[in-house]
């Protein structure tokens, strides 16, 4: 009896908390179907009349699609190149013994505690001097560099679990290091590639400070800068802003539900391992 009651309180408490998480999201979503007039007089209730014009208006904007496309390009380039660079480096750290192995690994790991904000001014100047301003690379290259430490840490942990006997056996059969990496390590490591890919992509998709410094041309704005731009344009019509935000939320939540396993494995796995 006692435990049934305490269970009831526990669920009550958890539901209350869930409400605090969900109410802001719910209000955002519901408001995107309201007219501006409805929004200001009827905050909490359902729309008096469900309208879709906010959505058709946002979809009709060219730059809405261009922001999405840009974020996709930033995300895909960053993810693919991070996977390549980090997995190769991690393979060396996990499987090849040589003088300096530990030192170089630690060198890359100190990057984990470098605050990104500290680098923005020299990064901007460097990218400018390389002539990369106004290209996707201005955002992609620094993003890869700052994501490497974490990606290598995750890859190395996984690669270490591949038994060295496997390499010895392959070596006898005439397999060298790079063959081993491409033919054996990679096929065995699909889960960790997925994890790193998901975490890298999400980080890139959400990044704001770096593009804010690097990108001045609206045609290259990624999504988060796009939202801020849009907010500036429609500050008097928040039903439009909230529609835009809802259109950000929905794919993010769907993606989260699909990739949840990888996101959590990546974030907590990397954390707990070190």
């Amino acid at each position: 009896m006692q435990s049934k009651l305490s269970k009831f309180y526990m669920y009550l408490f958890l539901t209350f908390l869930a409400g605090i998480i969900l109410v802001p999201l719910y209000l955002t979503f519901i408001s995107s179907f309201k007219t501006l007039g409805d929004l200001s007089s009827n905050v909490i209730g359902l729309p008096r009349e469900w309208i879709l014009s906010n959505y058709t208006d946002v979809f009709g904007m060219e730059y809405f699609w261009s922001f999405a496309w840009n974020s996709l390009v930033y995300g895909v380039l960053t993810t693919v190149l991070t996977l390549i660079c980090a997995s190769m480096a991690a393979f060396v750290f996990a499987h090849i013994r040589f003088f300096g192995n530990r030192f170089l690994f630690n060198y890359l790991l100190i990057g984990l505690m470098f605050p990104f904000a500290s680098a923005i001014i020299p990064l901007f100047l460097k990218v400018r001097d390389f002539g990369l301003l106004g290209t996707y690379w201005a955002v992609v290259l620094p993003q890869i560099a700052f994501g490497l430490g974490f990606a290598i840490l995750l890859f190395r942990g996984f690669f270490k679990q591949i038994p060295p006997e496997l390499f010895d056996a392959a070596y006898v059969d005439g397999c060298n290091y790079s063959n081993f990496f491409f033919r054996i390590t990679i096929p065995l490591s699909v889960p960790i590639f997925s994890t790193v890919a998901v975490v890298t992509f999400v980080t890139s998709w959400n990044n704001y400070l770096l593009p804010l410094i690097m990108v001045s041309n609206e045609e290259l704005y990624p999504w988060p800068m796009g939202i801020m731009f849009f907010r500036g344009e429609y500050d008097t019509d928040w039903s439009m802003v909230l529609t835009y935000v809802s259109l950000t939320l929905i794919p993010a939540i769907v993606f989260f539900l699909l990739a949840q396993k990888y996101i959590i494995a990546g974030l907590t796995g990397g954390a707990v391992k070190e």
Partner: protein
Amino acid sequence: MIKKNITSAFVEKYSTIIIFLVPALTLFTVFVVMPIFEAAYFSFYRWNGMGPPEKYVGFKNYAFLFKNGIFLNALKNNFWIIFVSLFIQLPFALFLALFLANNFRGAAIFRSLFFLPYILAEIVASLIWVYIYKGDYGLVGAIWGLFGADAPWITADKEWALTAILIVVVWKYFGIHMMIMISGLQGISKEVIEAAKIDGAGPVTTALRIKIPILWPTITLSIFLSTLGSLQLFDLIMPLTMGGPSNVTHSMVTYLYDFGVGRMRLGFGSAISVVIFIICFVVALIYQTTILKDKGYN
């Protein structure tokens, strides 16, 4: 014949090492390590980024920084963000983790729900709260409206703006720490918990005497991560207040963005960067040494 094989194996080994490591090492050195040293160099100049830095000013940028009320206030704000993260957010995350690490009915759903804010982009999470806080048609406005009162405009109110930011910080980030702690708790072997139960320990005693001590390394990691994160808070503040009203809610990084980058005072901005770097570095150093010390005891 054998000798040739050994040589070619040697060549293959080292060429693999070089080819596999060079891309990562180059990118990392050029875009992560060098900028820190360059920032340190620029910080001794007055410079707007045009041409090479020429006007050497010594420590003047730093001196100005530590006499500047807005920056000192930003430091204080960062302190409050850390304080709330460590003393409100983390205990709360731990408390929830102790519940939700058990697989009762619905636990998985609650875990996902509480984690959800973390995966939203900071800008998006922040904009949602801008809406909630709105005095005219936000939730806050509506609630005040019920009592027939004119709603305060929280994010534009000097007294309340920082609190408004702190609420969003907790809302956004408690989930990740809860998840980290849950994955730590699930790593504790069942036998230990069973043994405690047989010895007559109730759930509270088990949590305090067994689970939390075993979880301690994970908790220190959470402390470290949220301190570092708090020191670099930027994205959440921009949509909410942009450091305003009257510059009272700046963090170190929004201050850097506004007063360094925004006004093209790159030497001064670099000095701010260096201060942020040193603070983060010291925090990391403290974390490293305490962890090493813990390992020494075991």
